[in-house]
C-alpha cells in the first residue's frame, strides 16, 4: 500500500513534467498541424542554459528558470523561422526531416559545449533533499516543488491562452487558419508564437526537472517520446488531453517500474504510442482531424 502511494506520487510528479512537454507539442500541432521533432532538444538545451546560469554563474534559481523560459521561446521561434516557415508548402517529409536536422544540431552543440557522451550534470536541489513523512508516506520535497511548479505553469499557460489577445489569436488560427487570415491575423506570426510558446513551456519544464534528475545531451529525445506519448494519448489537439495524457504516462511508467522491472520505465511510453496510434489514433480527448489537409 505504501509502495503504491509512493509510486503514484512519483508518477504524478514525472507525469506533470511530461504534461508540460506534451502541452508544448500540442500547442504547435494545434496551430500548424505538424509536430516539432526538435521539441525534446529545445527542452534539453533550455535545461542546460538554466544549469549554466544557476550552477556555473551562480544566478539564483528563479531567474535561471525565467531565463530558460525566454531562451526556449527564442529557440522555438528560430525553429519556426528555419524549419517551418520556408517549408510551409513543402511536403511533410521535408518538414519532419528539417526539424530533426535542428534537433541534431542542438544536440551536437550541447555535447560540444557541455560535455561528451555519458556526461551527466547534476543540478543542486532547490529544496532540502531529505525526504519528509506526510501521514506515514515518504515524500521528497523536491517532488512537491516540481508538482506545484508544473501546476503554476499550466494555470499561467491556460490564462495566456484564454485571456490574452495573442492567446485568442492562436486559438482562432488553430480553429481555421484561412478565416483567421481574413480577420486580419498575421498567421505567420502566430505560427512563430506557437513554436515559441511551446518551446517556452518546455524550457520551464526543463528548469523544473533539472534539480530532480541529471542533465545529459541525449535526454531530449527520451523526453520528447514521452511527451509525445502523452500528447497522443490525450489526442494531440486537446490541451486538457495533454495534461491528462502526461499524468497517465507518468503513472503508468512509475507502476511498471515499481511492480514489473525498472527497465520497463523506459519502454512503456513506446508501447503506449504504438498501441494508441494503432487502436485509437484520436486519443482520449482528441478531435477527428488527424491529417494535414
Amino acid at each position, binding site marked *: 500500500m505504501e509502495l503504491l502511494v509512493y509510486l503514484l506520487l512519483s508518477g504524478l510528479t514525472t507525469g506533470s513534467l511530461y504534461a508540460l512537454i506534451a502541452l508544448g507539442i500540442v500547442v504547435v500541432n494545434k496551430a500548424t498541424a*505538424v*509536430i516539432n521533432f526538435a521539441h525534446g532538444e529545445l527542452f534539453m538545451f533550455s535545461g542546460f542554459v538554466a544549469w549554466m546560469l544557476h550552477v556555473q554563474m551562480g544566478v539564483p534559481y528563479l531567474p535561471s528558470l525565467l531565463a530558460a523560459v525566454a531562451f526556449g521561446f527564442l529557440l522555438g521561434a528560430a525553429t519556426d523561422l*528555419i*524549419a517551418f516557415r*520556408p*517549408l510551409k508548402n*513543402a511536403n*511533410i*517529409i*521535408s518538414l*519532419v*526531416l*528539417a526539424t*530533426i*536536422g*535542428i*534537433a*541534431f*544540431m*542542438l*544536440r*551536437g*552543440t*550541447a*555535447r*560540444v559545449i557541455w560535455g*561528451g*557522451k555519458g556526461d551527466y550534470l547534476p543540478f543542486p536541489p532547490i529544496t532540502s533533499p531529505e525526504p519528509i513523512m506526510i501521514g506515514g508516506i515518504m515524500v521528497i520535497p523536491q517532488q512537491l516543488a516540481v508538482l506545484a511548479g508544473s501546476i503554476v505553469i499550466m494555470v499561467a499557460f491556460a490564462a495566456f491562452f484564454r485571456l490574452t489577445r495573442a492567446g485568442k489569436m492562436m486559438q482562432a488560427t488553430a480553429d481555421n487558419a484561412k478565416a483567421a487570415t481574413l480577420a486580419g491575423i498575421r498567421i505567420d506570426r502566430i505560427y512563430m508564437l506557437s513554436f515559441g510558446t511551446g518551446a517556452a513551456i518546455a524550457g520551464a519544464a526543463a528548469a523544473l526537472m533539472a534539480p530532480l534528475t541529471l542533465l545529459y*545531451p541525449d535526454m531530449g*529525445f527520451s523526453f520528447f*517520446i514521452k511527451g*509525445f*506519448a502523452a500528447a*497522443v494519448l490525450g489526442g494531440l489537439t486537446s490541451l486538457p488531453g495533454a495534461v491528462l495524457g502526461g499524468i497517465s504516462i507518468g503513472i503508468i511508467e512509475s507502476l511498471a517500474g515499481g511492480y514489473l522491472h525498472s*527497465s520497463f520505465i*523506459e*519502454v512503456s*511510453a*513506446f*508501447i503506449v*504510442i*504504438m498501441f494508441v*496510434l*494503432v487502436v485509437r*489514433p484520436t486519443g482520449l480527448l482528441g478531435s477527428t482531424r*488527424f*491529417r*494535414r489537409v
Partner: protein
Amino acid sequence: MALFGRRNVLVAMLLFAAVAPTFLNAYYLFVANTILIYVLLAIGLNILVGYAGQLAFANAAMFGIGAYGTGLLQVHFGWPFWLAFPLGALIATMVGLAISLPALRLSGLYLALSTLAFAQFTQWVFLNWEPVTFGAGGFKTPPISFAPLPISKTLGLYYLSLILVMVLFALAQNLVRSRIGRAFVAVRDGEIAAESLGVDLLRYKALAFGISGFYAGIAGGLYSAMLNFVSPEGFDLFQMVIHKAMIIVGGLGSIVGSVLGAGTLVFVLEALRKVKGVQEIAFGAILVGFILFMPGGIIGYLKEKVRGWEEPLHRARASRRPPVAATSESSEVRP
C-alpha cells in the same frame, strides 16, 4: 552520350570499386566497404521514403535486426555465416512486413512517430534482453572465412559487398521502373488516386516496407561481419539520421542518388569521426541545408546541369513516347 553522362560515371565508379583493393590501404578499404554497406541502406530507404512516400524511421532498427540476426544465429546456434546471413536478412524483411501493418492505418506524422517508437523499442530490446543480445556491451561474432577461395576475410567481404551492391542496385533500378515502382509512386503522390487506379494499398505499402527491410537486413549482416562486433549503440537515432541524410543529399526518389548520397556522407562521417557532437551538428546542418536550399539533392543538380543525367523517360527521343507507354501499362494493374 555525353562523356560525363550517368552511364559513363557509373561504369567508372564500378571499375574504380573493382580495382580499389589493389592500391587502398586497410583503413581506406574499410571506408570503401562501409560505403558499399551504406549504399544498400540508402537504396532500401529511398525505395520506401523516396518512391513509396512512407516516412518511416525504422531503417536503423532493421539494420540492427539484420546485424543482430546474423550475429546471434552464429553465436547461439553455431551456424555458419553463409546460413545466418540470408536468414538475418529474412528476419529483417519479416519485421519490415510486420511494421507495415500500422502503416496501413497511419500516414505522415503518425507513421513517422509510430515507427520511431518502434525503433526505440528495438533499441530497448537490444539493450535489455541480455540472455540473448548480451545487453549494452554487445558481442563478438565469429570470424568468417572464404575457405575454398584463396582470399583474406577483408578482401572477400569487400567483394561480397560489391557483388551484392551491383545485384541489388540493378534490382532496385529495374524495380522502380516496373509496374511495382510506378505503383509506389502513385501511392506516394496520392493514396486515394492510387486506389482508384486499382493500386492495392495494402499490398504495395507492405511490399515497400518489406523491400527496405530486406536491403537493411543485408546491410546489417555485412556490417556485423565487417566489424566482427555488434552492439546496440550502432543502431541508435543518429544512425537513422545518417540514413535519412543520405537519401536527402543524394536525392529522394532516385536510386543513383542514393549511391551518391551514401558515398558522400560516409566521407563526411569519417572525416568527423573524432568528435560525436561535431558529427551530429554536421549531419543536422546538412539535413536542414539540403532541404532548404537543394531539395532535389545531388541528383537534382546533376539532372539539371550536366548532360547525360536526364531521366531516361524525360529524354526527348522520337522513337519512344513514354506517356503512352506508361498509360498502357498502368491500365493492366488489376483492380
